[in-house]
């Protein structure tokens, strides 16, 4: 570590020293500006850390600068923490002296990488980081003492709905609980911590020629997805992620550790598969995974002057595709009348002829502009996701996204979806191809109930009211939604996520397992009043 005086060192000396190793910049108020110099040196070197202190025109500008330093330089500009300034960043109403588990508070250097999620900027007052079920119980005891604050649960922090961060509240971050182990090779039974990412899971299973479908991106965490659904690239061939769940261990709101499976607490097992965020903090999942060898993996880019027609054709092709084939569609607003359509999908076959024959009909829904088709490992597809290092997720602002299930991709849906895209309120529009093995499971088997839609649609926009007003116009085409892709906080969305009998059962289970409604910040199912069958008689 070399200490450099900004009043004396020349630019050449500074760069030379920084290329040799870590440096600390000393500022006496003369010569080069410390912050500018530190950022410059970070930009001119690759591994070097640069220590510096700087003054900003306000606390808010200082925070802004620190945030940009973290993202632009990957945390290589290390700013001296001022203990008084760090304490000043604490939020009201949190017992910072009584924190029972490892945790990060706003003044901590590592906090910056844990405050936000993939798409949502956040500033929680405390991020609790339990490493064991008993630490989860302690974190929940702390949360019960802070009921006046928002409470987020976070595994990978990738959720589109953004519920795993908040402003001024608590976050229970289970990213440290990320072990993956094989329990029984003959039964292909594996045990996975909630903090692992699907990329890590895929790598661990790959050596056995196994895979477990998740979504479409390896950077997503296990916990959030495995308590919601998991509509992904292998779903039509092998079912949803939660269809593979054989047992889940969790800590309830009152701190009790429980195990749920078909034979142990079966009601809770039913609820955890689709509505898990309302019932507890999952600490381990046991999955029966699939034998998956090499797969066909395709990315196609098509151009279309008639989006409505292309969507209709996509629907027809998708409907007739064999269940080994899952192809998703993404597009944005048409530009000068032209839509760019990205198709990406997986064929669960290592035979190139089969892969090509499956994909060819999809390639004709527009004018093919680019194509990439490979035979590869599922783990390599998940491996395309970037690793999230200590710099963490750096979403900004509030994501605006809506989700819905489309029972049938009708011509009228294609027409209205094309109009939605022309409205300019949607910059990202995705159709996830469902059907196939998803429909093999009885809708009553778990809280996730929408087994028969052809498509799951997700739309992201920049303006909440603008997106809602356009998206709501398509309501007649929809039945249900996937809660992880929806940021709409209007209460009727909960009724969209769960059909009435399912919601009623969830509310009664909520009363049993979380009667005080501690877990309330992600599609909250409010506990129902207990059913008292003899009340009428007593009153009579």
């Amino acid at each position: 570590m070399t200490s450099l005086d900004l009043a004396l060192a020349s630019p050449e000396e500074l760069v030379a020293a920084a290329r040799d190793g870590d440096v600390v910049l000393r500022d006496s108020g003369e010569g080069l500006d410390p912050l500018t110099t530190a950022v410059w040196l970070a930009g001119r070197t690759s591994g070097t850390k640069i220590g510096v202190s700087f003054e900003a025109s306000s606390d808010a500008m200082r925070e802004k600068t620190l945030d940009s330093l973290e993202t632009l330089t990957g945390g290589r500009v290390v700013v001296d923490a001022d203990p008084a300034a760090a304490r000043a960043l604490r939020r009201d109403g949190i017992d910072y002296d009584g924190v029972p588990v490892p945790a990060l508070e706003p003044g901590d250097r590592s906090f910056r990488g844990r405050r936000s999620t993939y798409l949502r900027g956040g500033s929680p007052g405390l991020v609790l980081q339990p490493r064991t079920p008993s630490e989860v119980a302690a974190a929940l005891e702390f949360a019960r003492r802070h009921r006046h604050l928002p409470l987020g649960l976070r595994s990978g922090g990738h959720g589109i709905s953004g519920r795993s961060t908040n402003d001024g509240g608590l976050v229970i971050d289970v990213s440290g609980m990320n072990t993956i182990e094989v329990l029984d090779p003959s039964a292909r039974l594996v045990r996975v911590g909630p903090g692992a990412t699907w990329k890590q899971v895929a790598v661990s299973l790959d050596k056995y020629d196994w895979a477990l479908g998740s979504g479409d991106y390896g950077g997503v965490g296990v916990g959030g997805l495995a308590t919601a659904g998991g509509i992904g690239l292998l779903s039509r061939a092998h079912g949803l992620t939660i269809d593979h769940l054989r047992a889940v261990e969790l800590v309830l709101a009152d701190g009790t550790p429980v195990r749920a499976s078909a034979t142990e607490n079966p009601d809770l097992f039913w609820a955890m598969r689709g509505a898990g965020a309302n019932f507890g903090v999952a600490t381990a999942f046991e999955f029966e995974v699939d034998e998956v060898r090499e797969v066909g993996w395709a990315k196609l880019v098509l151009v279309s002057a008639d989006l409505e027609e292309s969507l209709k054709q996509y629907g027809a092709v998708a409907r007739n595709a064999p269940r080994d084939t899952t192809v998703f569609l993404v597009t944005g607003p048409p530009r000068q009348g032209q839509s760019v359509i990205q198709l990406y999908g997986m064929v669960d076959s290592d035979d190139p002829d089969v892969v090509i024959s499956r994909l060819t009909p999809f390639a004709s829904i527009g004018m093919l502009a680019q194509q990439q088709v490979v035979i590869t490992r599922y783990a390599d597809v998940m491996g395309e996701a970037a690793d999230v290092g200590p710099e963490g997720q750096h979403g900004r602002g509030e994501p605006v996204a809506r989700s819905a299930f489309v029972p049938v991709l009708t011509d009228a849906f294609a027409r209205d979806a094309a109009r939605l895209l022309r409205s300019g309120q949607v910059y990202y529009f995705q159709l996830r191809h469902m059907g196939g093995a998803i429909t093999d499971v009885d809708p009553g088997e778990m809280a996730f109930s929408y087994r028969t839609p052809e498509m799951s649609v997700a739309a992201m926009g920049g303006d909440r009211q603008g997106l809602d007003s356009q998206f709501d116009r398509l309501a007649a085409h929809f039945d249900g939604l996937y809660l992880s892709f929806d940021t709409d906080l209007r209460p009727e969305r909960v009724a969209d996520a769960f059909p009435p009998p399912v919601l009623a059962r969830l509310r009664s289970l909520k009363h049993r397992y979380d009667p005080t409604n501690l877990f309330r910040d992600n599609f909250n199912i409010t506990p129902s009043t207990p059913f008292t069958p003899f009340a009428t008689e007593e009153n009579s």
Partner: protein
Amino acid sequence: MTDYGHDLLFGTFVTPAPGAVELAQTADRAGLDLVTFQDHPYQPAFYDTWTLLSYVAAQTSRIRVSGNVLNLPLRPPAPLARAAASLDILSGGRFELGIGAGGFQDAIAAMGGRKLTPAQSVDALAEGIAIIRDLWDTDTRSRVNHDGTYYNVVGAKRGPAPAHDIAVWVGAYKPKMLALTGALGDGWLPTMEYVPGGPAGLPDANARIDEAALSAGRDPAAVRRLMNFMRMDGPPSSWIDHFADLALNHGISAFIIGGDDHAMAEALAAEVAPAVRELVKRERGA
């Protein structure tokens, strides 16, 4: 017919958000003259523009960088002068100072800045520019003192001295700001979409700047006229005649294009810039 005879500059107006560094590198590789970034610190999706400028300067080799324009109320003049001179030294003279009075007063106040009326913010900018120029001027050894309404500087040491004469380019639209630009600026840096009347408003704005420059005893040609275009429609080859017209008839000598598009930046450098330069050279020679 107005033409101040400056060499022509071409550049990009890049959103200060993820992807900005790569867009700046593309502009640099393509051979553009300028890469510039707006400065709205209260916009949560944006990087801190000063941090970004410093990083981009380090990650590029030839292109000049500038705020477009920096927000003076949130970047007080004395520290800004030191930071600007430092970046100019470190980058080998590749920094220019695009600066403005700050438009969104409530948002500025929310970031800890002072809330001023539009008229006050113009006066504050005039004070700020004077302080910045004084601190850069190391030809004299005397300490810098400014007893202003908005900024006080007491006994500040000068320096560091920039590596080159950093141009002060002012974002201005209304009469008071145009007058300030003519009196104190090295350049005028508006956005075409916001110029009252669009291209038809240019003669009036230019005249106001010229008049203020003359009243201050300066040559109007000392004030370069730059122009941002948030969005240009059609293929870049279709912009050539328009830009040449703006150069020859409205004195515009820098064309800075938004849109965050790598291919556009490459086409701007490879097709548009040489063709506009050729047309303008031919006309000026005639």
